[in-house]
């Protein structure tokens, strides 16, 4: 049985002689040099900020490059569709209905006899534009409201949060369904509806980020300097709250594209005159059993586009994650 009670002599501490391996020892100065008086920063390393740090982390990840390449491709297709297809997507010949792929028409023809490949190319613009517009709008409105709510607190916060709750209570799709009945159907109105009902989520994230920054000592130092509250919010607080906003914005862009496609699928999104992936998928539904490819090409393009934004969002989140930055 192990002996737990110590020897009486140990109880009296230093008055007795030490054990052999506990005698006074000190290391050789050469092997344990003591650093110089004033510790100076490492001169050789280049200056890095949060962004440079994040960039360094991000550029070594293959996922980043893959998703960046895809996004670039999608944006190019949306901006310059004529570079990718010389066929007019609206030029449809019923005679070609469900035609097989041929030279110059790699995806074949859909029910109306339109060239699927061309429609996929030209359909990118609608999705991307809606996605980008919505994201920009949601970020601007949401971050402003969330920032003010989180920073000023108390009554302002209560009020703004309640307003956000009200809009948040109505699910995005339902709200869009109801509202799109009323409005003209074009890119701007669809984006507008999504912005009006989609900002609360960004506002909540921003508010949370602002709350955690608000009590930092550099904020107090700015107050002691005499900086006005709006200036502190704009110059010190918001820039530090940006990281989570960027992450959620990237992911939301993908989500908004999906919602737009769903609206078009339900027939209440963009009008049929606009070439869009959602609309095409909706049309293709009837022929799923006989000609599934008519559905899968636009669906695949849509999925790939959204996927690239989601992957980018993942990569960005990992790079900007404050816990990963051990300093």
């Amino acid at each position, binding site marked *: 049985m192990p002996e737990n009670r110590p020897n009486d002599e140990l109880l009296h501490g230093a008055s007795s002689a030490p054990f052999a391996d506990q005698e006074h020892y000190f290391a050789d100065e050469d092997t344990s040099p003591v650093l110089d008086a004033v510790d100076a920063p490492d001169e050789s390393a280049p200056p890095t900020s949060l962004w440079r740090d994040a960039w360094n982390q991000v550029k070594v990840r293959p996922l980043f490059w893959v998703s960046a390449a895809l996004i670039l491709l999608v944006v190019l297709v949306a901006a310059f569709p004529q570079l990718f297809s010389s066929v007019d997507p609206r030029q449809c010949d019923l005679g070609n209905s469900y035609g097989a792929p041929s030279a110059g028409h790699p995806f074949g023809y859909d029910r109306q006899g339109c060239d699927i490949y061309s429609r996929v190319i030209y359909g990118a613009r609608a999705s991307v534009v809606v996605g980008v517009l919505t994201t920009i709008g949601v970020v601007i409105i949401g971050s402003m409201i969330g920032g003010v709510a989180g920073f000023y607190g108390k009554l302002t916060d209560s009020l703004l949060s*309640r*307003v956000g*709750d*009200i*809009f948040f*209570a*109505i*699910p*995005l*799709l*339902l*709200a869009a*369904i*109801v*509202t799109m*009945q*009323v409005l003209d159907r074009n890119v701007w109105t669809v984006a507008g509806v999504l912005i009006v009902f989609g900002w609360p989520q960004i506002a909540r994230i921003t508010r949370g980020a602002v709350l955690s920054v608000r009590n930092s000592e550099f904020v107090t130092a700015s107050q002691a300097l005499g900086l006005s509250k709006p200036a502190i919010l704009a110059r010190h607080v918001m820039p530090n709250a940006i990281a989570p906003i960027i992450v959620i914005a990237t992911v939301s862009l*993908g*989500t908004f594209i*999906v919602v737009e*496609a*769903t609206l078009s*699928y*339900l027939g*209440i999104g963009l009008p049929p005159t606009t070439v869009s992936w*959602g609309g095409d*998928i909706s049309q293709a*539904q009837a022929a*799923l*059993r006989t000609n*599934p490819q008519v*559905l899968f090409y636009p*669906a695949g393009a*849509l*999925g*790939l586009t*959204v*996927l690239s934004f*989601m*992957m980018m969002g*993942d990569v960005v989140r990992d790079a900007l994650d404050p*816990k990963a930055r051990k300093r």
Partner: protein
Amino acid sequence: MAATGRKVSLMAWYVARRVMQLIPVFLGATLLIYSLVFLLPGDPIQALGGERGLPPAVADQLRAHYNLDKPFIIQYLLYLKGLLSFDLGVSFSGREVSEIIASAFPTTFQLAIMALVIEAVFGVGVGLIAGMRKGGIFDATFLVVSLIVIAVPIFVIGFVVQFVFGVKLGWFPPTVGSDVTFYTLLAPAIVLGSVSFAYVLRLTRTTVAENLSADYVRTATAKGLARPRVVRVHVLRNSLIPVVTFLGVDLGALMGGAVVTEGIFNVPGIGNALYTAIKAQDSPSVVSIVTVLVIVFLIANLLVDLLYAVLDPRIRYA
């Protein structure tokens, strides 16, 4: 004894505060819905008359009957009054809206609950394993799977599932129709819960990975607890908190997705009823249905808040 008494009253005040916060949101949301629908173009009364239209006298009578001739705010207040007494008005087709909802709601409710259970059980389960083996093959695989599920729109997933499992493989009936059973609702439930499953998976994974390196987990291990117990008692329990919050908010997404899923699988639920009502510009139905859905969402959020307080004792003092 005094300690438990005090704890009960703390919870009671917490509940009371949450309920009070709910009321302005409820009022605001219903007002918003009502005013949105109010803006619907066209004259639904004339539409009832079809091609020939209605004689003005009849039209006026109908209009008065549906209160459409009164100013907006009066209509809204009348509607609120009706709501609180469960009188949801009469749809333009003649049926009581409450009857429409009553017959369709149980189906959608069952569908939503099934979806919720599926996404919760599998999402948390897979997420737990992924979080514990972060960076491994299992984790990477499911990360990709979850991304794909989120990226592909729900209607595409619905089509694919319907096609592959319903038509080609015949594991499920491709459409539901009037045959509403647990088995027939399984495919739509899986589709409905698929996107949320992906989010739950990712959330659980991140939270678990984070909590695994928490200080109190280290203390638990230092006590001499075996790993399975540490994970079960300390990591899982703490990781459930954000997941529970998400599930509550997710109910809203489920209700939105139900519109699509019910359409694809022809489920006689509220989503379908809503879609039909919108197409017919049947404003009483639209307003009531959306209102009921919003109420369900708000109540679900309230329940989630309460559950949160049970799971995290610190919240009761907030």
